[in-house]
């Protein structure tokens, strides 16, 4: 077990180093221009010299590998650098933006859970009856709607029927609670609904499988009421895999927020990274991406280790990384 953990951590470090190097060099060599080219308009006098001076000032001259090493050193020592455009420190921006993305993901996850678990259970209990057919069709329909579609259709519906649109400028909760709720309501619902259809189907299939098990028949044979059988014996066994699936969807929630944040103009992490990409702001882009990758990889590692620890059947011997 210890061997396995050490091996996984070492592999994680290798992946991190290789991945960040790949990302850094891709970001610096693939685009035909760099951020400085965007800042200095071509018709300014001495454009080339101004650019060179700016590059020297921002540490963009010199060999690429040395720039990568200095970025790496900064990343590990907590000196994450500044945006090339706004010159604002990245750490400061993260402090403002992480809560927005986190709120979006967390409330979205809550909506998913609150929506899909009860409906999935209901659908399984009324198997092959009208309720079940309606719910299954609904689940399939929701599954067929990507976040972007739900977002645009919701905005259209509200604008046409109620003449309502969310406020365009963002406010934090502590500045104006009601306005904040108005802004966050639609995006969180969209994030929540997007994965709900899938989870309704998952809950239903899994509960049906559990209800067919021997221990459920035993519980019924003992004369327990249907309610006790359901709550004590069946639902408990469904809850565990359900939580695992929810946990596995956390990275997806984080990354899908790029679309939702851009659609609803939220100043979250996804939008920050995306704007850094289109403005070729490489310190911001590389740092935020690696930050996310660390979060996702570490959570994967923790899940795998927890599995290996809890389930002796998971082989953590050599050869199955």
């Amino acid at each position, binding site marked *: 077990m210890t061997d396995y953990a050490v091996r996984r951590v070492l592999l994680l470090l290798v992946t991190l180093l290789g*991945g960040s190097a790949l*990302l850094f060099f891709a970001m610096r060599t*693939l685009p035909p221009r760099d951020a400085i080219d965007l800042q200095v308009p071509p018709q300014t006098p001495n454009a080339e010299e101004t650019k060179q001076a700016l590059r020297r000032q921002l540490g963009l001259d010199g060999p690429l590998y040395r720039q990568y090493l200095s970025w790496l050193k900064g990343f590990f020592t907590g000196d994450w650098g500044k945006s090339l455009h706004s010159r604002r420190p990245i750490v400061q921006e993260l402090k403002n933006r992480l809560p927005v993305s986190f709120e979006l993901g967390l409330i979205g996850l809550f909506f998913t859970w609150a929506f899909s678990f009860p409906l999935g259970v209901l659908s399984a209990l009324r198997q092959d009856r009208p309720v079940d057919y309606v719910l299954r069709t609904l689940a399939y329909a929701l599954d067929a709607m990507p976040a*972007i579609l739900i977002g645009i259709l919701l905005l259209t519906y509200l604008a046409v029927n109620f003449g309502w649109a969310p406020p365009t400028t963002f406010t934090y909760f502590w500045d104006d609670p009601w306005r904040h709720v108005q802004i966050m309501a639609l995006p969180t619902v969209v994030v929540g609904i997007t994965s709900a259809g899938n989870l309704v189907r998952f809950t239903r299939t899994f509960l049906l*499988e559990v209800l067919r098990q021997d221990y459920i028949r035993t519980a019924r044979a003992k004369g327990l009421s249907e309610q006790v059988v359901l709550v004590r014996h069946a639902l408990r066994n469904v809850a565990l895999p359900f939580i695992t699936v929810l946990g596995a969807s956390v990275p997806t929630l984080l990354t899908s927020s790029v679309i939702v944040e851009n659609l609803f103009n939220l100043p979250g992490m996804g939008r920050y990274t995306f704007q850094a990409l289109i403005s070729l702001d490489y310190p911001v882009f590389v740092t935020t991406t690696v930050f996310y990758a660390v979060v996702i990889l570490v959570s994967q590692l923790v899940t795998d280790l927890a599995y290996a620890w809890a389930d002796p059947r998971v082989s953590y011997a050599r050869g199955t990384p």
Partner: protein
Amino acid sequence: MEREWAARYQPVALEAEGWTGERPRSLPERALAGLVRFCLRKPLGAFGGLLVLLLIGMALLGPGLRMGPLSIPRLAPYHYNEYDIARAHRERFQAPSLEHPMGTDQRGRDVFSRLLYGARISVAIGLGAFAISTVVSTTLTLISAYYVRSVDLLLQRLIEMFNFVPDLLIIGAVFAVKGATPLALALVLGVLGGLNTGRVLRAEVIRIRGLPYVDASKAMGASDWRIIFRHILPNVMFWIIVSATNSVSLAIVAEANLAVLGFGLDPALPTWGNMLDEAREYVRQAPHMAIFPGLMVAMTIFGFRLLGDALRDVLDPRLHGARLRP
């Protein structure tokens, strides 16, 4: 040995499958019978298949077809970029009518015709991505997961590192070099999707690889290739087919996402994503501009999803005999 065993047990197996001793039928006959059986057993899946066929028909016939001597006039009432500047201010934002079944857009162009042209682009992207991703994920994963100790260790690290680079950067870079064409998009989405579905397939292959029948066939002296193609591939085939149907819808969603992010294909092309993106500005004047492309995207994914799930139920060897109806 194997043949002897088969000779002894075959009659029983065939009888169990309902074999009545009739003359073996020809391939088209059997295919037709299989199709009818699938439709009877999985009506929802058959409905999904119908939607998919409808979409492919739209893509083929909508903009008209000209292949050698074969020439079919277009189904779309207008060209996708047909409008009259002088009358545009009167003809734009029209609600659905007999003349324009899905209304007109901000320049007075017919939304229905644009949807038909867009269907061809979406189907091209979807099927292109589907073909590439299936080839990539199948070959790479089968080899990698079978040789877990050598190839896999390296390859998995490489894929993990590639996962670091966000798809948007890769797509942007390819567009910068190759231009924002449907072909380039299908290529990138296919490779990226292939690497992703490969992860799940890999776990499945590793699981099967440890099963007794693989050991048994190894003990009988079967070569690696024989084990991979005769014993492992048929058991994961259902998985490959299901994720292939998924990759079509993923590619279509990706096109729409990219368009709304401003990273999409050439804005002059009438893709569904571009139409959705344009509609966002005119939500109040012309909601139909958003609704119809949205419905097309949803219908396409709906069809592929139903078909994929039904195929999984029919093909998954582990679900045989179970009365699960998802």
